[in-house]
């Protein structure tokens, strides 16, 4: 197999397996040593490295923005969009005034493949695999839903105690090393100001909470940010998005990522559900990767800029 020689020759309009994405990350770091570095924040259940790209113009422990893609492994457009975002940050770091001002004061962390075991499994054995690949004694069923494994209403309604369920919350909060790695990273960093977790599909931009109907104290501000982000996203291709809190917009979901991050004090916590409206679901054609990433990037920039301009 031919490996891309540079991130310029990488094919962003095609889906890639884990090895190819990890090669891309190494190329990006090698090409941009003054901006991009690769951190290993932990190991997965099957001992794969959990990599995060750090985009930084220097300084120590600057306020930061976190973006993750691919926590649900079958949502391939998310990992593919993560790759595109990484290249976009490098390309636009100087020519896009808004991004430049963000990077002047903040770092961006991007975890492109948050659930590498599951992602490999979707490429090798079961395209529809969603969960992690952890095993439980006493059950033949494998995996935990990493978006029900966080310590925010853990084990409550909207998650399942059955290891065979797609929404199995796991034996205890942070039982999954993929989740624990992020928890440790966020706590150790201590200065993350915006946290965006990207899923697919159904075209939503959501903010906390998912585990309780009690609105977050910052509901009005988050609602307004979501409104502006969705407007920016829709301006490119007219893609229609709905926005609101998780529990009021979709359903109760306990143990979710951004409920935990919000409770940790990260006010600007959002989660996306990328395209599609109901033709392909998780099998979104590769031709839609770049348009999806492009429109999502516009929304991400609104969130990042808001975090920059509204320090707390």
């Amino acid at each position, binding site marked *: 197999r031919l490996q891309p020689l540079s991130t310029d020759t990488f094919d962003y309009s095609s889906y890639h397996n884990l090895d190819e994405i990890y090669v891309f990350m190494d190329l990006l770091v090698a090409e941009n040593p003054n901006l991009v570095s690769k951190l290993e924040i932990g190991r997965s259940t099957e001992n794969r490295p959990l990599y995060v790209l750090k985009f930084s113009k220097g300084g120590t422990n600057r306020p930061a923005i976190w973006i993750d893609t691919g926590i649900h492994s079958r949502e391939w457009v998310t990992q593919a969009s993560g790759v595109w975002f990484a290249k976009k940050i490098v390309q636009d770091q100087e020519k896009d005034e808004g991004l430049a001002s963000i990077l002047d004061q903040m770092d961006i962390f991007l975890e492109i493949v948050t659930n590498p075991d599951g992602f490999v499994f979707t490429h090798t054995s079961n395209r*529809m695999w969603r969960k992690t690949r952890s095993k439980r004694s006493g059950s033949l069923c494998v995996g935990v839903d990493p978006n029900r494994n966080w310590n925010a209403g853990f084990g409550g309604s909207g998650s399942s105690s059955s290891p065979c369920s797609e929404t199995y919350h796991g034996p205890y909060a942070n039982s999954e090393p993929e989740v624990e790695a992020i928890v440790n990273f966020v706590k150790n960093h201590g200065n993350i100001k915006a946290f965006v977790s990207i899923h697919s599909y159904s075209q939503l931009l959501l903010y906390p909470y998912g585990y309780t109907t009690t609105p977050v104290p910052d509901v009005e501000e988050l609602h307004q940010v979501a409104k502006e982000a969705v407007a920016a996203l829709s301006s490119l291709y007219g893609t229609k998005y709905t926005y609101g809190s998780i529990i009021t917009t979709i*359903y109760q979901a306990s143990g979710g990522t951004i409920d935990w991050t919000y409770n940790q004090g990260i006010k600007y916590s959002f989660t996306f559900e990328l395209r599609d409206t109901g033709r392909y679901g*998780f099998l979104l054609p590769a031709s839609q990767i770049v348009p999806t990433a492009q429109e999502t990037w516009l929304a991400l920039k609104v969130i990042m800029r808001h975090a920059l301009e509204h320090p707390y």
Partner: protein
Amino acid sequence: TEDFVGHQVLRIVPSSDEELRKVQELQDLEHLQLDFWLSPRGTGDPVDVRVPFPSLQPLKVHLEANGVPYSIMIEDVQALVDQEQMQMLRQRR
């Protein structure tokens, strides 16, 4: 490798609380091995469910018997998976 030959994805849009309840009940029918791509949210919101081939007929009968309308979102999941694989192989070459 898991194959999805004959699997369909059905789109159900419950238009009343009664229909919504019927669709929610499907989540408990473990023997059908349904894979909810979009779980039930509320009336008017789509529910997408991947149905293995052996469960297609019983599920459709169940929906029709309860007057719950549905449409076929993906006729054959494996055909789309194959297309995706072909596209990846072509790009690599």
